[in-house]
């Protein structure tokens, strides 16, 4: 177990430096004045530009610039936003909102995805299974912003069940609809994955042996089929987190939820390059951490990993 964790940590180090370097490279290896380019058609904000030049030590050689920038990240300095506010400050105020939204979405995803996927897998080829398949394929094809708009239009505006946009404090109950929207795409993936996994596990020899021991079907499903089927689903959660972050950006933007996503959304819409880069960097780092945590969860679920093969 210890060796496994250590290996994972060691593997994450080059990936951390690689990703930050890549982002840095994309932005600052551009021809012309990178700072000016970042502002796009927006017109240069000289105050921010000066601040950026200082922050990225643009008079230094490229690689030195990168390490100075990395040093800042380690101190929690992700730069300043377009309005001159430190990104870390914005993060602190917006993160709790996004966390609430993500919790709702993840909860729905896990509960609905695994339950429906399990039933579907156990009833392979039956009506429930085939209708689930059709619905999930449609959900997968729907871009999240379309789902968000339709939900806003139908439930928020036409039916008037909820406020079409979320109020400033973003209370839990107003986040339910955006949470559902955010969960839809991933829930379809989790249903499909759980279903596949359940069907595969159900055909395993050890399941037949469990029946031969005289166990009840309920116990076999809970203890043997479900537990084993969850392993690939957990590994998928890490990948899914990337989809969730992009989804949160779109959802928070459309429902006007004052979270990290909306900040990024507005920065993108307004073409505020420096803020975009800072927030993407933060998200990538969160993503890396989540991936590491998933690896640990994976080890907890699968003893073959835990004890090293």
């Amino acid at each position, binding site marked *: 177990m*210890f*060796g496994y964790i*250590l290996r994972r940590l060691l593997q994450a180090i080059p990936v951390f430096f690689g990703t930050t370097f890549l982002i840095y490279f994309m932005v600052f290896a551009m021809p012309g004045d990178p700072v000016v380019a970042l502002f796009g058609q927006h017109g240069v904000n000289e105050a921010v530009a000066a601040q950026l030049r200082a922050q990225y030590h643009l008079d230094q050689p490229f690689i030195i610039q990168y390490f100075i920038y990395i040093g800042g990240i380690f101190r929690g300095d992700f730069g300043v936003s377009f309005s001159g506010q430190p990104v870390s400050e914005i993060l602190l105020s917006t993160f709790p909102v996004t966390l609430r939204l993500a919790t709702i979405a993840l909860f729905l995803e896990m509960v609905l995805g695994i339950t429906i996927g399990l039933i579907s897998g156990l009833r392979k080829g039956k009506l429930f299974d085939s209708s689930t398949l059709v619905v999930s394929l449609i959900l997968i094809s729907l871009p999240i912003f379309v789902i968000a708009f339709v939900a806003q239009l139908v439930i928020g505006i036409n039916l008037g069940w909820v406020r079409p946009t979320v109020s400033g404090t973003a209370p839990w109950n107003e986040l339910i609809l955006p949470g559902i929207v955010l969960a839809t795409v991933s829930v379809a993936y989790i249903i499909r994955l759980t279903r596949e996994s359940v069907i595969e596990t159900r*055909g*395993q*020899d*050890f399941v*037949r*042996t*469990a*029946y*031969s*021991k*005289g*166990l*009840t*079907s309920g*116990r076999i499903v809970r*203890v*043997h089929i479900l*537990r*084993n089927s969850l*392993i690939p689903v957990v590994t998928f959660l890490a990948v899914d987190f990337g989809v969730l972050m992009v989804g949160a950006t779109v959802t928070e933007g459309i429902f006007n939820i004052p979270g990290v996503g909306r900040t990024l959304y507005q920065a993108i819409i307004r073409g505020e390059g420096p803020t975009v880069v800072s927030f993407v960097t933060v998200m990538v780092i969160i993503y890396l951490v989540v991936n590491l945590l998933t690896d640990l969860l994976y080890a907890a*679920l*699968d*003893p*073959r990993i835990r*004890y*090293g*093969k």
Partner: protein
Amino acid sequence: MSIATPTSAVTPGSGARSAITPLLEIRGLKVEFSTQRDSVTAVDGIDLTLMPGQTLAIVGESGSGKSTLAHSIINLLPGTGAITAGSILFDGQDLTTISEKELQGIRGRDIGFVPQDPMSNLNPVWSVGFQVEESVRANGVAVGRKEIRAKAIEVLRKAGLDDADARMRQFPHQFSGGMRQRVLIGMALSASPKLLIADEPTSALDVTVQRTILDYLDSLTRDSGTAVVLITHDLGLAAERAEQLVVMYRGKVVEAGPSLEILRNPLHPYTQRLVAAAPSLASRRLTAAAKGVESTLTSPVVAVPATAAAFDLAAIADRPRAGIAENTALQNNALADNAIVVDGLTKVYSIRGRGFKTVPFTAVDNVSFSIARGTTMALVGESGSGKSTVAKMLLGLEKLTSGRIEIDGADTGELSPKELFNLRRRMQPVFQDPYGSLDPLRNIENTIAEPLDTHRVGTKAERRKRVYELLDQVSLPRAIATRYPNELSGGQRQRVAVARALALKPAIVILDEAVSALDVLVQAQILQLLHELQTELSLTYLFITHDLAVVRVIADNVAVMNKGRIVEAATTSEVFENPKQEYTKRLLDAIPGANIRLGA
């Protein structure tokens, strides 16, 4: 449908019980698997009877329906399989009509089940203790956490795991195959069922492990008076372990009765074929013949009409052999006549240890042997003995750590890449897995022609001609050339693999478990083919196998490997009749059927 009532199994010696009603009575059982279009009958009107405490073996090849029959008893049929006719009376209750809930009560408690492959039959994510306890709890053997745990430990200890207490918390992947099978047997017997169904319980295990496991199974069921239905493909094993034998062929019973009687006097032509082709029995017959014992068994088998027995394995073994083969001393003097000389061959792998350390592991340890031209040497060993690594090093698929290999007098270590490439024409392999050794996306012609293409032999037309010639040689119709591997059976694929190996007219063929995965009849057929090809093309064989029984019929010389070393090397007859090493004796003893007394 049969009118006769087969297997009225009255065990000799259990006269006191003979008045008791049968424990299991199957009548007219039919099992079908439905596919999208039609249905396939896997078990077609089977009758059988089993008395309490009796052991009955069901023997058949793959596809005979024997496993389906076993699974249908406790309704564990996979997928679309279903019982469509007949009855299964167990202890007076018809298992085909009772509810799933009632069946749950019978499974584990009254009928135990030991599956085939120990590697896949324990759930990898739960500890072994958890899985045993679960079984104990479900069958009401013990109540209360402490009692259940104590009972679980007892179950494991009874199954032969000495450190059961500590082992409870371990996971299946930390157990060897043999230990896992002990756990499975322990679980199946934990509730002292009246009947145990064992579906090829040891075919995935090494012979010596197989023997100990079967001995355990024997003693445990004898102690508790449990009746056993033993499913196996091995006639020798069946006869050794069961008093009653049922031979299945294409979903039907073709012959049933007392084991020894069936072996001595097989009446159905199919059984006669099986008896003639079973390597373990052939070995026994050879041994008996060699010792000059006039066996009552040999005569009727040899007298089997030619139409019934496709070939008799013992006949292959009785072929005239090259004089030099029997004389190892001469072999060593006449070095020039050796096709292969291996000297001090060693392979050390570094495997990952704890954390980041690597640990050296010696897979092959100072192995030396030589094979005279035109003869067959068998390299025998159990899994992990290093025998396949030797083959890979010979074939240049693995680098040597030290030692040298001489092929036709040339030291392979000193050859240039070009010369090595040319050397490959002299030596070709046939691998074990008939399903893995042919590229599924290339047709048979391309597969057989690949060596010719690679070595740029002849024109396109000439290559095609050669492919046809090779197909004729391995007795496959030419029409097969445009076919793909998954249209062929295992035996046919192995023929294709042999044809590919012979394409470049090599002098040496390395057969790495080449017949191990095949059914006995097909196995005998391929052995026959190999024998004919050797005579015809004066080939040198290195025959790598775990199966000593097969060795007896094909090899001139034998080298026995254990833990990377050759522990004994001699002529085949010496090894079989006068084994010097304890390990060799154990291997010989473990051949299923080795204990059957043939000359009654």
